[in-house]
């Protein structure tokens, strides 16, 4: 039997179907290649259109023309539906129009596709923050901080963390803000500007010691920087380091006499130093004079507050002590200074919240009281 004759022994469909299959495969390949070519033309055209519309959108976005920017990016997305960049830009334009819900929808879609995208997380955090959704905002801010960024990663992460810190300070979450600041400080503060920023944020977070450190670092680089001097003065003032505060604030005032906050703090620091009889190395006579002045000042404070029944016992104590308050007796009985000052502190504390506005002297005495209580 020949090979030909054996082949013919196969049923007819076995001779036909393999050929059919081969032909179908060939046709599919040809069709596929043709559609690929068509697809190339189609995709190129759409990409070009997308770029053209996105270009217009970027220009509009820069000019803060959000309405046309939305139309531009929407059109661009018609031709490049999956473009993350266009979706992000559209979301930003929508946020510019305060259409946060729409923007959020785009961003969430992007976030699901690119959870590592820092900018998307940051924008989502901003929206959550604007809606008062603190937990979501914190989650997205942290995503942004640890996410991938194009360009300078460190810079972008620092900016994201700074934004988070500002948000935390806005919602008065000072301990969390302070924790974030401590993290930030580990890699921040490479120049005086960054030190200044750190110092100011630490001040706002109530971490005065770190604030003072940051301002002092800034002053090491620029010793006459008025902002650093003012910041260091304020931090020292808050820490009740009044001599340091006076030193920094005097320099800051000299550099910028128009800064009313500095002037007020300087005035107060000077008052504390002037009225505090317990400062080290103050001569006895000076201490006695300070005690007499303080005693007289609280007497005035009591007179303005006689209607308040809570101060009556203090008034009696003051009146009882008054005859002993003279320089001669103070010279002979140094303990009287302590007694007088303790009474003065009690009077200032009692009247602080109940007897109307305080004078600078009253505020200074209260600060001195706090200072010595802490010590």
């Amino acid at each position, binding site marked *: 039997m020949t090979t030909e004759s054996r082949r013919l022994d196969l049923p007819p469909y076995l001779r036909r179907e393999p050929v059919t299959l081969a032909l179908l495969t060939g*046709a599919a390949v040809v069709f596929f290649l043709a559609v690929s070519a068509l697809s190339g033309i189609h995709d190129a*055209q759409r990409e070009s259109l997308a770029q053209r519309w996105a270009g217009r959108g970027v220009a509009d976005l820069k000019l803060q023309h959000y309405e046309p920017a939305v139309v531009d990016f929407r059109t661009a997305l018609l031709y490049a539906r999956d473009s993350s960049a266009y979706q992000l830009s559209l979301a930003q334009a929508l946020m510019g129009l305060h259409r946060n819900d729409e923007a959020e929808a*785009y961003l*969430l879609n992007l976030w699901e596709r690119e959870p590592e995208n820092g900018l998307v997380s940051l924008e989502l955090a901003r929206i959550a923050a604007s809606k008062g959704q603190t937990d979501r905002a914190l989650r997205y801010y942290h995503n942004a901080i640890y996410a991938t960024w194009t360009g300078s990663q460190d810079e972008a992460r620092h900016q994201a963390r700074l934004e988070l810190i500002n948000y935390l300070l806005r919602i008065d979450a000072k301990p969390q803000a302070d924790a974030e600041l401590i993290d930030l400080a580990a890699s921040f503060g490479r120049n005086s500007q960054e030190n200044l920023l750190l110092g100011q944020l630490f001040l706002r977070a109530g971490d005065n010691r770190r604030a003072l450190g940051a301002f002092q670092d800034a002053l090491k680089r620029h010793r006459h920087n008025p902002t650093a001097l003012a910041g260091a003065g304020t931090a020292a003032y808050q820490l009740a380091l009044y001599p340091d505060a006076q030193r920094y604030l005097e320099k800051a005032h000299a550099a910028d006499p128009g800064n009313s906050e500095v002037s007020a703090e300087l005035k107060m620091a000077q008052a504390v130093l002037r009225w505090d009889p317990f400062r080290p190395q103050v001569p006895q006579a000076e201490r006695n004079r300070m005690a007499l002045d303080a005693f007289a000042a609280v007497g005035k404070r009591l007179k303005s507050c006689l209607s308040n029944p809570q101060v009556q016992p203090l008034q009696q104590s003051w009146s009882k002590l008054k005859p002993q308050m003279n320089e001669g007796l103070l010279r002979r009985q140094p303990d009287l200074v302590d007694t007088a000052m303790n009474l003065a502190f009690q009077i200032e504390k009692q009247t602080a919240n109940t007897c109307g506005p305080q004078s600078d002297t009253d505020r200074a005495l209260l600060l001195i009281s706090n200072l010595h209580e802490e010590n």
Partner: protein
Amino acid sequence: MQQIAPVEEVEAVASHTSRFQPARVLQTVFREDSFFLILSVFIGIFSGLAVVCFRYAIDWCQLYLLGSGAEPSHSRLLLAPALTGILIAIIVIHFFPASRGSGVNQTKAALYIYNGFIPLKTAVGKFICSALAIGSGQSLGPEDPSLQIGASLASALGRKLHLSRERMRLIAPVGAAAGLAAAFNAPISAVLFVIEEVIGRWTAGILGSVVLSAVSSVVVMRWFLGSESMFRIPPVELKSPSELIAYSILGIIGGLASVVFASGIQELRPRFRRMSPWTQYLQPAVAGLVIGVIAMLGAPQVMGAGYVYIDQAMHGQFTWQFLAILALLKIVATLVSFVSGTPGGMFAPTLFIGAMLGAAVGGVEHMLYPHLSSSPGTFALVGMGVLFAGFLRVPMTSVFMVLEVSGNYTIIVPVMIANTFAYVISRGLMPTPIFDVLSRQDGMELPSMEEQREESILRVEDAMQPPSDPILNPEDSVEKAERLAEQTSRHVLLVRLRPSGWSTVGIEELKKLVAEGKGTQPIESVLTGDPVPSLHPDLPLDTALRYVDRWPVVPVVNRADLSEVEGLITERDVLERYRDFGGE
């Protein structure tokens, strides 16, 4: 001869051993049913490629007719659909008259009437005219044309390969599934739709082919167009069980909207077709003009398939009032587009109307109970399923379509509730489904899948008689059997066999045996006929027909206890029940 001998020897050895036998492998692979499965993959690939081309064609038409911007100028809005409408009318009337009408029905016609034949010309016409229509802004969708393009390609392929008539009948639905799957990017929904609405029955062979073609077409489509779903699905959730009330209301509104939409087509389509022949040239243009005016007046969203706007509705970018207006305008726009004879499908408009209605209901709920309601996107998604169930009357597909598009199973309860309401209301108010309406308007009486589903069938229990006659045991004597037989009205008695099974014995036979002196013998020893099969009460009565003409009486036994006879059935019982059923 000397050269051939070794080959023969090898062949002889091969045929008697278990070694690799190419001929046998080929026989297995190229058996017609296996080959049909392979062919289904090719149908899927070709359909997927054709649908990709179709989508490109729509994009290009849209680009050149309406411009590249998302907001076309007023002149384009007015002129593009109207002037293109005239062109479409000329092409349809003079070159592709068969490209009008529903692709679903044409596929069904191929299956039930034309032995799988759909002219390739129909696909070409559908491709060109639908691309022009959708691209110019007519309110129609690409799914139905895609379905028909797939079916038509499959039919052409089947004809070329000279498939058997049975395969040819099935090949169009296989292509239809491929076309629809590629258009929807949803293979499960496409398979279900074709099974539910076109073929109407599940068998392994059909399902395998349909699934293979659908999956391969989707793979091809995703290769070129990407794997993203048609919409960006927002986070979907059911916030509170009380929200189900809102979803029920959505189902009711969707059901009513479906009836309005379908009734509009039922009423208007024949009227438009009865108009003078010359008006056929103008009808698509007038429809285009109406849509252009609607767009110019502030609702360009009604133009084309509208997927972009479904997406926007899902993300809460419209107020509920505007969403409701859009739903209403889309019904009007789709009505005029479809009844004017412009080729194109109604799947996308159905989804659009459903999404808008859903998002509108969601918006109202959010306004009334802001803390209770989930996102409008959830309502829009459910709304799409609602219109699918109410308008297209494919309840299973409608549920799976929403699940497949959303990729989220948490909304299955709202979807099922809303779809059920819509389906029941639509069916109650408009008994004939839209596809059947269209086929009857086209002069065809295609089988209605819904009617088949709902049809009540007769079962064995409806015809069987209670087992009043005694049943003989195998050990009973012939004499005893004869005595018992005398007391009954039947000519035949049932005999229980050991350990199982049944037989029958006739009175005449028993008398003859007694006369022959075999009266004391056990009945078992004298049985000569074949064992009698048994039936169960729940079996269709058709099943009984296969047996009752061979055996004079057939036992109907309990499924849990095969020895318990629940009734007896004879040919006469069956025929009488059928006669009575026809009278009912």
